[in-house]
């Protein structure tokens, strides 16, 4: 990165933050601070919901996933449209009618205090655990590639987001998210067109897709019934629907985004905006990764994209085998490129036999190259955390730094930080609100002025921000832990959704039955997770169904005992 790139990065991020604080300045009551001024239009809500969900990891890692495994990950989002419709029809009107600050406040209205606190505690535990990740995950990748200090990257990005979230509250979060997602989209679209322009002369977009299809990278929909497969249309639609329903309907970081709508209509349209555009957005980001795969079929790629990890291990004991694998990979890549050029030539001339022969040769060479990559990964995995074996996160950023012009590099790095800040601000805003409303105001100090609660909310938001920064600085997270925290979210979400579905649809069930059922269901999900190897998306279904079923049984038992 040069001065222009740094200027774009620092200037854009600070300008958005300062503008948002300035626009939302002025004294606010608790409602204004936690829910916003109540005049948000559907586009602001829709972009804010999208920005909260799409973290920097989405834009850094997803292209790498497309590069490595193709388009299949998009199925993870197949449940989102149906889930968002359910949230718009059932959840949203109730939240608005009761004028709640948090989703868990509704549980207090419907059940009792302990169920409300359970819902809030599960949210705080889950989001609190993940709080550091949103800052840490992009910081580790960007600092490794750029040579920045990790601690400085975490502290600088963390303090910016804490400052404007604390000062501006919900309105500032929504406003910054709107501009930040604009920067993200601009960066992604620019990367797409630069990528197309970098393909070899004569290779059309259609040819590029044929190359990708020839290596099975375009398989976006898997109809397999095998439950062990992580992404299929069934796990995506069913498991993904439960996950999305829980996330959009019960996670305060999302609920807070649409509670500030000017009307029910604006909030609903904001949700429908996401129902329509979430899948194409994810597909587009994966397609970027697939096109980077095609690009690297004609351009020499590194055997391992995390060059810092590779260089470190090559200089510390594993030099000979790593260099041997690198040589094998480069030889395989040269053969693969020759095969692909023959394949495209045969396709154009209509030589069917030649096309099949060349494709088989390219596929054989690609297999050899993949074996060399796998061998490299094995060596780096055995070397411990420093030699991280997963380089998917580094694919996109390596391409950006290696092939994009200055200015655009700055725009893309700004986009990654904008994504980190936008999701982080939504999380901090929600953590601060839930701590204030469901814990402090409900359990510690019930009667106080609005000004007091606003002040406390600011302190709690700042505190969660500092916890997140501290966690990111000192936890020394490995990538496995990052994945574990993501899976942990899925494990909790099912049960939380179960509590809310009981609240909405099983009117005769009371707080005691749902409270104990939720705890038992959570224990069941933990037990199953430690024994089964099914896709983690299914735990959303299991937790939810178990919570609802047990609640029915327990309510029957309680009813009989009373009788």
């Amino acid at each position, binding site marked *: 990165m040069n001065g222009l790139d740094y200027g774009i990065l620092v200037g854009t991020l600070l300008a958005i933050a300062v503008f948002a604080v300035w626009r939302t300045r002025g004294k606010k009551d608790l409602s204004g601070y936690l829910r916003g001024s109540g005049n948000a239009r559907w586009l602001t809500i829709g972009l804010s919901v999208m920005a909260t969900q799409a973290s920097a990891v989405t834009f850094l890692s997803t292209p790498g996933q497309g590069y490595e495994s193709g388009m299949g990950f998009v199925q993870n989002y197949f449940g989102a*449209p149906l889930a968002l419709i359910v949230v718009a029809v059932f959840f949203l009107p109730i939240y608005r009618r009761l004028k709640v600050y948090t989703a868990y406040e509704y549980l207090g209205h419907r059940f009792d205090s302990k169920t409300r606190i359970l819902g809030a505690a599960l949210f705080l535990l889950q989001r609190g655990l993940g709080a550091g990740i949103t800052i840490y995950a992009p910081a580790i990748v960007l600092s490794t590639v750029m040579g920045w200090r990790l601690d400085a990257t975490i502290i600088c990005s963390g303090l910016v987001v804490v400052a404007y979230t604390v000062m501006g509250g919900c309105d500032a979060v929504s406003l910054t998210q709107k501009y930040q997602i604009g920067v993200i989209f601009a960066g992604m679209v620019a990367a797409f067109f630069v990528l197309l322009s970098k393909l070899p002369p004569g290779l059309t977009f259609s040819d590029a897709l044929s190359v990708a299809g020839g290596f099975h990278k375009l398989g976006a*929909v898997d109809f397999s019934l095998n439950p062990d497969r992580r992404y299929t249309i069934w796990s995506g639609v069913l498991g993904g629907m439960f996950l999305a329903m829980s996330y959009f309907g019960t996670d305060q970081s999302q609920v807070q985004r649409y509670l500030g709508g000017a009307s029910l209509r604006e909030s609903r*349209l904001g949700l429908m905006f996401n129902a329509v555009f979430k899948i194409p957005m994810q597909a587009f980001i994966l397609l970027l990764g697939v096109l980077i795969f095609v690009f690297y079929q004609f351009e020499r790629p590194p055997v391992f994209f995390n060059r810092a990890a590779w260089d470190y291990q090559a200089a510390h004991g594993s030099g000979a085998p790593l260099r041997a694998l690198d040589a094998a990979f480069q030889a395989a890549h040269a053969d693969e490129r020759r095969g692909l050029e023959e394949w495209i030539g045969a396709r154009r001339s209509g030589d069917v036999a030649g096309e099949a022969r060349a494709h088989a040769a390219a596929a054989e060479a690609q297999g050899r190259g993949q074996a060399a990559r796998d061998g490299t990964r094995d060596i780096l995995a055995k070397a411990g955390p420093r030699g991280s074996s997963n380089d998917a996160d580094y694919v996109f950023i390596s391409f950006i730094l290696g092939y994009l012009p200055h200015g655009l590099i700055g725009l893309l790095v700004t986009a990654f930080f904008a994504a980190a800040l936008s999701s982080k601000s939504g999380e901090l805003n929600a953590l601060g609100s839930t701590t204030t409303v469901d814990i402090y105001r409900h359990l510690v100090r019930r009667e106080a002025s609005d000004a007091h609660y606003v002040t406390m909310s600011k302190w709690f938001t700042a505190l969660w921000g500092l916890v997140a920064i501290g966690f990111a600085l000192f936890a020394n997270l490995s990538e496995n832990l990052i994945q574990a925290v993501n899976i942990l979210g899925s494990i909790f979400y099912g049960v939380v959704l179960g509590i809310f579905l009981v609240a909405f649809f099983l009117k005769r069930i009371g707080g005691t039955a749902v409270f104990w059922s939720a705890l038992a269901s959570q224990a069941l999900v933990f037990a199953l997770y430690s024994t089964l190897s099914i896709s983690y998306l299914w735990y959303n279904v299991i937790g939810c169904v178990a919570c609802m079923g047990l609640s029915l049984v327990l309510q029957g038992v309680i009813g009989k005992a009373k009788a």
Partner: protein
Amino acid sequence: MTEPPDDETTGLPGLRTWSQVYVAVLLTFVAWVGLLVALDRWFS
């Protein structure tokens, strides 16, 4: 603040009721899935 009725108009041209909006969203979802399947079939 009085909450508008649940069946308020959507304000969308051609989609007057919320049921129509939800059906349109579901049809869009089916179209996206169909497009992704077609993309794979066409180029594989």
